[in-house]
């Protein structure tokens, strides 16, 4: 039974958190009535949703719809959110940019925050999983965009999280690298069984990867679409186009 961090922020922003134990079958992440406003402008309004253990959920929305705000709230990077968040203790984030420490070698970057014991071994395993065996000694500045993002992925994987948060991690990659990264994430998710919350504005990406897509509009969850396509998925399989149209329609793109 994994321990969870329950944050009740209803009364006072930045407020109390209690560590509790998650009962079996309970969701990995649970948001209830989460809101956020910046200088009187509401960007999230009463958002509630759950992510089940091992579930792959995509948060879709146009820019400014509040996707990243939700992810930052779940990553506890935003002290200004109100509402109740039940979070797993072990979560990891891959940001849109690799965000590697340029003054630390790849291995040290992956190991950041890890206890000393077995560190080298864990780092080597994580780098192997993202096909970067033997690059532990490289400086981040010498990596390509795709390699750097794979290091960021290794840094997330190495702590064997219950939840992986992905904030448009493929957005700044070229088309070919993006496809390879999507396949890599799908493979790692299938092997490790962690839950994933993926923020994206790419409908195809959501359909290829996620079990469920939440469509955000103006700070609220406007639609929920269950992606019940069999895996492995292709954009040519039956039902794909229909779901694609539905999601685009929800996103306000008329075809």
């Amino acid at each position: 039974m994994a321990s969870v961090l329950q944050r009740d922020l209803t009364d006072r922003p930045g407020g109390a958190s209690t560590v509790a134990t998650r009962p079996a079958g309970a969701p990995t992440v649970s948001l209830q009535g989460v809101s956020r406003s910046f200088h009187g402008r509401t960007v999230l309004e009463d958002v509630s949703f759950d992510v089940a253990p091992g579930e792959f959920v995509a948060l879709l929305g146009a820019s400014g719809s509040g996707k990243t705000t939700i992810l930052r709230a779940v990553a506890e990077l935003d002290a200004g959110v109100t509402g109740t968040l039940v979070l797993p203790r072990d979560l990891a984030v891959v940001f849109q940019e690799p965000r590697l420490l340029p003054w630390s070698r790849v291995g040290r970057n992956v190991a950041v925050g890890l206890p000393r014991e077995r560190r080298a071994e864990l780092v080597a395993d994580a780098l192997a999983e993202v096909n970067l065996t033997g690059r532990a000694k490289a400086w981040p500045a010498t990596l390509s965009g795709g390699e750097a993002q794979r290091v960021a992925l290794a840094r997330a994987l190495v702590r064997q999280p219950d939840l992986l948060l992905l904030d448009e991690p493929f957005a700044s990659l070229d088309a070919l690298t993006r496809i390879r990264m999507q396949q890599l994430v799908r493979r790692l998710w299938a092997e490790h069984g962690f839950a994933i919350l993926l923020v994206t504005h790419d409908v195809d990406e959501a359909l290829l990867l996620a079990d469920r897509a939440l469509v955000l509009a103006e700070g609220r969850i406007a639609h929920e679409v269950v992606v019940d396509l069999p895996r492995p998925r292709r954009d040519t399989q039956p039902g794909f186009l229909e779901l694609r149209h539905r999601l685009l329609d929800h996103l306000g793109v008329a075809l």
Partner: protein
Amino acid sequence: MSLQELSPHQPGDTDVADREVAAPPPDEAASATPAPAVAVPVRTIVRHPAGAVTRSPARRVAAATGHRLRWVRRLASLAVLLVLWQVGSTRGWIPEQKFPAPSTVWSAFEGLLDRGELGENLAASLGRMARGLLLGGLAAILFGTLAGLSRVGEEVVDAPLQALRVIPNLALTSLFIIWFGIGEPSKYYLIALGAFFPLYLNTFGGIRNVDNRLVEATRVFGVGRVGLAWRVMLPGALPQILIGLRQSIGVAWLSLVVVEQTNAKAGIGTLIIDAREFMRTDIVVVGLLIYALLGLTTDLLVRTIEKGVLSWRVSFSGI
């Protein structure tokens, strides 16, 4: 072109040829009224790879010569100046009493060295400098880190220091002599105070300029405040801290020169003051040259440290 003539076929060398190439005639069938053929300027660039096998021994020699040539040019201008100085002094264009010839300065230097005066005074100056710089530098990094890392630290530390900063350290000489006596301690403290501010400001500023996205990305992986300071803030601020160190050393040398000229028993400054009493301009010039050499040495030292600890950087290094 002059660069290529001087150092032909360096690694990554470029051959550029500008020429005009006639544009292909437009498709007659597509357009009823054919446009006249326009010459389009084209640049053909051929780059020779570094260490290419096709490079002849002659070319390799040429490349090595190019590197040596740069050093020759650097030293040549200095030598020309020295020769002009010597000739000017011998011919009597430069009055010997006001500015002695290089040969006179050299013999003064040898005399000082033989009598052990130079070593003794140099040791005194270096000791003073080291103590002042160490004291001021350590305090600067400590307070700069404190103010940089925490907002409370900034409020408590930075405000009074900013008020103090506007007073030139050497203006405090009188006060320091009253407080710490006329001996050595007041001198260390004046040097320390001068060295403090550039390093303090750059440490504080360097920490505050660290990319917050890196701080977030590290914090999210459970790194605490101490870990963040050690893994993110200080390495991120290091380039700026080293710039501050260089500035601090500059101010420390300046302060040393001034404090050594008042009531010091030994030091390069004392050597210069004593020489002035006897109109020994040659010894004064030796003292000045030693100051210059010391300044150069410390600057070179910091540059070497920079090269070592900032090896991760891939930054613009000038055209």
